């Protein structure tokens, strides 16, 4: 029950906001209500966490009702370690986003209520998608997130917003509709073997035949690869990120795009293990291309927001690489990466969003020397940037290294090429930092004033988590591990064993804990 309440809370909040009178000039009531609702959601998700038993790899807190009997669709929700991680990410990020978006200059200030209402709607739908254990329900929520995001980009974005919004929607819709074909196919296959059911637990054991399985897998994968986005299906993201407000961008990249990678693990791998295995060489290749390509493109950008979008292409490459390497190490890394990338990209988008709004331009060349007048801002930018380039000690490093280390055990070339990404990441972040923050103060950059207390308050939780999880990722990993192990064993895979086991494998210094480590 608590999961339903969790997902329903932001939706209800969105409805309240939509009905709230358009009130005062600063729209403070709407903002406060939005923040309040998101904090209540956060509290609820912490309650979920409190009830969650991390050592169990299966679905917990489940709920199941028949929804559309004719389709075999259920309203079925539940969380496993992967889902609970992303639920937590979503509920943590949304209050941050809302707080950071208080002063967003909207094209039409009258739309403030709608702005925050749509945000909450995205949160509710995304939470639903993470918690759904029924393919039909998942699909519906997955696709439904498009609408609020579409309005968020199209109504509240930059000058070229409608182009970006349409591109975003159509691109994602193409993927989503291909997935619809696969969803329909699942129904047909499932109903041929008795009563149709979209429940994950039923579909997992479905025998579909090789060709059907591959086709359906491709349908699912098309949607997720566009959403995540995987090269060469990424071109909607830079445009959308460029035009959207920072808050929208964070929602899009940090939360909603994660449904893509989440879907790959939860749906693609669970439903189509053999097809996933069949496609993995191609997907790994594309992921590696994404990593390098995204990073190189990021280096070549002059627009900060496009730059961050391309860094995300690169990072999503890592996530997908880890998933399709099929080792529990890399997959746990990927899952953690989703969480960490959410945080670091949120910090990056939000702090650059503040910079851009003060400067009135997103061109890197319009900045320069800002560090002098806004040291805290530059510090936050640097820290967010360093987390994006996976500096050890910050959260993304752990996940990136797990992905690489896991991948290395099955494919040395993929891991080696992907490792190139760490140099390129240093380049794109540091070049951006160098051009915006250092050197003499650029003539037009006078207006880029220091972060205000509210902005600091919004960014602090993200920064704290980025640092904290860099050293103590274990609380999250301990929830992820059992779930990932379940997926990997469903795939019929196991991690390659070390070729030359060390003679003192459990050396005295790590003996006490090393034993817990083995699964």
């Amino acid at each position: 029950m608590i999961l339903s309440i969790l997902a329903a809370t932001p939706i209800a909040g969105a409805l309240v906001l939509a009905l709230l009178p358009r009130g005062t000039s600063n729209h403070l009531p709407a903002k406060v209500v939005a923040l309040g609702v998101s904090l209540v959601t956060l509290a609820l998700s912490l309650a979920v966490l409190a009830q969650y038993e991390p050592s169990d790899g299966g679905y917990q807190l489940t709920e199941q009702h028949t929804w559309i009997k004719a389709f075999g669709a259920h309203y079925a929700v539940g969380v496993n370690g992967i889902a609970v991680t992303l639920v937590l990410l979503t509920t943590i990020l949304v209050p941050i986003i809302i707080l950071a978006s208080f002063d967003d200059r909207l094209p039409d200030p009258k739309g403030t209520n709608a702005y925050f209402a749509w945000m909450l709607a995205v949160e509710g739908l995304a939470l639903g998608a993470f918690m759904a254990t029924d393919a039909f329900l998942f699909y519906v929520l997955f696709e439904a997130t498009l609408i609020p995001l579409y309005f968020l980009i199209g109504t509240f974005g930059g000058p070229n917003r409608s182009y970006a919004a349409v591109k975003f929607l159509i691109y994602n819709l193409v993927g989503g509709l291909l997935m619809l074909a696969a969803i329909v196919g699942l129904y047909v296959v499932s109903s041929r073997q008795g009563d149709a059911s979209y429940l994950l637990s039923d579909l997992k054991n479905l025998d579909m035949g090789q060709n059907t399985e591959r086709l359906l897998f491709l349908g699912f994968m098309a949607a997720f690869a566009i959403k995540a986005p995987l090269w060469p299906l990424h071109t909607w993201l830079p445009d959308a990120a460029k035009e959207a407000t920072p808050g929208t961008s964070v929602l899009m990249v940090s939360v909603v795009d994660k449904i893509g990678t989440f879907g790959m693990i939860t749906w693609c791998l669970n439903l189509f293990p053999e097809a996933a295995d069949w496609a993995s060489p191609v997907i790994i290749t594309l992921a590696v291309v994404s990593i390098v390509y995204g990073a190189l493109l990021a280096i070549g950008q002059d627009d900060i927001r496009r730059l961050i979008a391309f860094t995300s292409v690169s990072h999503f490459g890592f996530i997908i690489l880890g998933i399709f390497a099929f080792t529990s190490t890399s997959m746990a890394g990927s899952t953690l990466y989703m969480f960490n990338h959410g945080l670091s990209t949120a910090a990056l988008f939000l702090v650059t969003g503040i910079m851009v709004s003060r400067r009135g331009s997103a061109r890197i060349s319009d900045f320069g020397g800002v560090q002098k007048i806004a040291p805290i801002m530059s510090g936050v930018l640097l820290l967010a940037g360093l987390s994006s380039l996976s500096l050890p000690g910050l959260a993304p490093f752990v996940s990136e290294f797990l992905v690489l280390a896991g991948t290395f055990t099955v494919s040395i070339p993929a891991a080696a090429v992907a490792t190139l990404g760490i140099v390129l990441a240093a380049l794109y972040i540091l070049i951006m930092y160098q051009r915006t923050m250092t050197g003499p103060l650029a003539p037009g950059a006078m207006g880029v004033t220091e972060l205000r207390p509210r902005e600091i308050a919004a960014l602090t939780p993200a920064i704290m988590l980025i640092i904290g999880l860099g050293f103590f990722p274990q609380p999250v990993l301990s929830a992820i591990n059992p779930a990932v192990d379940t997926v990997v064993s469903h795939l019929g895979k196991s991690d390659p064993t070390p070729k030359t086991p060390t003679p003192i494998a459990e050396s005295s210094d790590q003996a006490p804990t090393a034993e817990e480590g083995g699964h």
Partner: protein
Amino acid sequence: MLDLQWLLIAIPLASGALLLVWGKESDRFGHLIGTAASAASFVLGVVLFVTLMGEGADDRSHAVSLFTWIDAGTFHVEMSFVYDQLSALFVLLITGVGTLIHVYSIGYMAHDERRRRFFAFLNLFVAAMLTLVLAGDYLVLFLGWEGVGLASYLLIGFWQHKPSAAAAAKKAFVVNRVGDIGMALAIMLMFAQFGTSAIAAVNAAAPGATDTVTTSLGLLLLLGACGKSAQVPLQSWLLDAMEGPTPVSALIHAATMVTAGVYLVVRSNAIFDASEVARTAVIIVGLVTLLAGAWIGCAKDDIKKALAGSTMSQIGYMMLAAGLGPAGYAFAVFHLITHGFFKANMFLGAGSVMHGMDDDVDMRHYGGLRTMMPVTFATFGLGYLAIIGVPPFAGFWSKDKIIEAAFGQNLWVGLGALLGAGVTAFYMTRLMIMTFLSEKRWREDVHPHESPRVMTWPLIGLAALSAVGGVLLLGDWIVEWLEPVVGHAEHHELAVPAIVLTLIITAVVAVGVVAAVAFYRREPIAGETPADDSVSLFARAGRHELYGNELNDALVVRPTTHLTRLLVWFDGKGIDGFVTGTADRLGDTSQLLRKPQTGYVRSYALMMFAGVAIVVLCLLAVTLA
């Protein structure tokens, strides 16, 4: 007691974090907190060292695991630290020299409004460097490795308003990242091969691994070491890094961080012991860098860059020694420590000179400073004697041992090392002459003066260490001390007795000194750097850092830039062009398809009629075909 080793790291880390977070009100005393933290760490380091000495020779490796850092799938990493003979020495060096440099910085940075942050970064550096040397797992080592890289980045670019500083900082980080590829891949390989990246476990397993594995591991680690220690081919960042404040150059880019590569090789001795190829590669890298650094040192007029060239060269010695295997590890570490003393000493001296010369770094504008800055001159002089290897100063002992070991390995390697010693003597003498001895060349408005006490006391301390650092070799103490860590060396009989070799070395050094004196006392030194075309090819290449930057530009930077531009174009016109092109085609199709909708009812009827015909024919065709 030894379990408290984590405090070594925690103290400066906490102090650094505190200084960063604490607001402006801590500006007045922030530097004191920072210095105190470093000093506290040093005191603890001494206490721990004494405790370690009290342990039996075989019980001196003390491991502690704080918590499980990462545990996912089959990957397991403890946040573990090892305090043993090797790391104990490093702890002392880092915290000792570090504390002196903190003290020095109080004076040097006195007028900088961001001094508090400077000390915060210094503290962070110390914490990271200690993490690096205390790490019990390669991944923890990597954490420190990148931590010092970050601190280095922040400190090189400390004066961010200078574009050159910001560029140098970025360059240092990026070049180091290239090395990090090696480190990262090495750790992945360890994980894949041995199922762990704990240093002890890997070293224990390395002898059992295949040649391919150990060679790959060795070469990958060497790549990492090259980045961090500015060894050829990743040397280019170090000279640019001199943009940072001088205490930074002294601490990070002379005494400690840049030697991390050497530490890495020594720490991974089992891997290198198992691979001949990797060892040879280390020797080659060391030898090439040794000579290249010395060459550059001869040609630079910027005092810090000349010293930086020297640093490269000296680290080349250490690398070379490390590449010699068990025969050289101890001497590599020994030279590392003595170098830490005298090079930090000289860098701080250079800083003191700059302090008195209004931050001018061009030696051509110096001259005759010995009278104006007696303490600086005296301490610098001790460092000078140490580095060129005049007995009985610290550098003599360490360098002598390395050259001796090099001859034990291979005649040519030995000759190279010997040549390096001569060149070292040459460029250091040149530096001394241009700065302190020759006639004064400074401009009217500059008033050289001795630095305040807070800066000279550390100089005196370091000078003393430079003078007496050789005591570590007394009775082969350091060799025996490190033996449990790096293994026992077979003694090689040289073709000539050791004492003869020592004499030869000293003679070569003397030749270098004399050559420099002859060269630079013969005629007055020009007040400005002569134009490129008026100097020898040798000098020109040295000035241009042997064209390393140009080479990087041509081989890496420009191709990457072009590739990036090409890809940006491709992304817009190719991939996105395909997408938008498809949309455009559909738009065209739409226009085309609406054409038949003419508004004439007869044409509609015709279309229908045609449709009827087609449907009828289709049905017939399907069935009858």
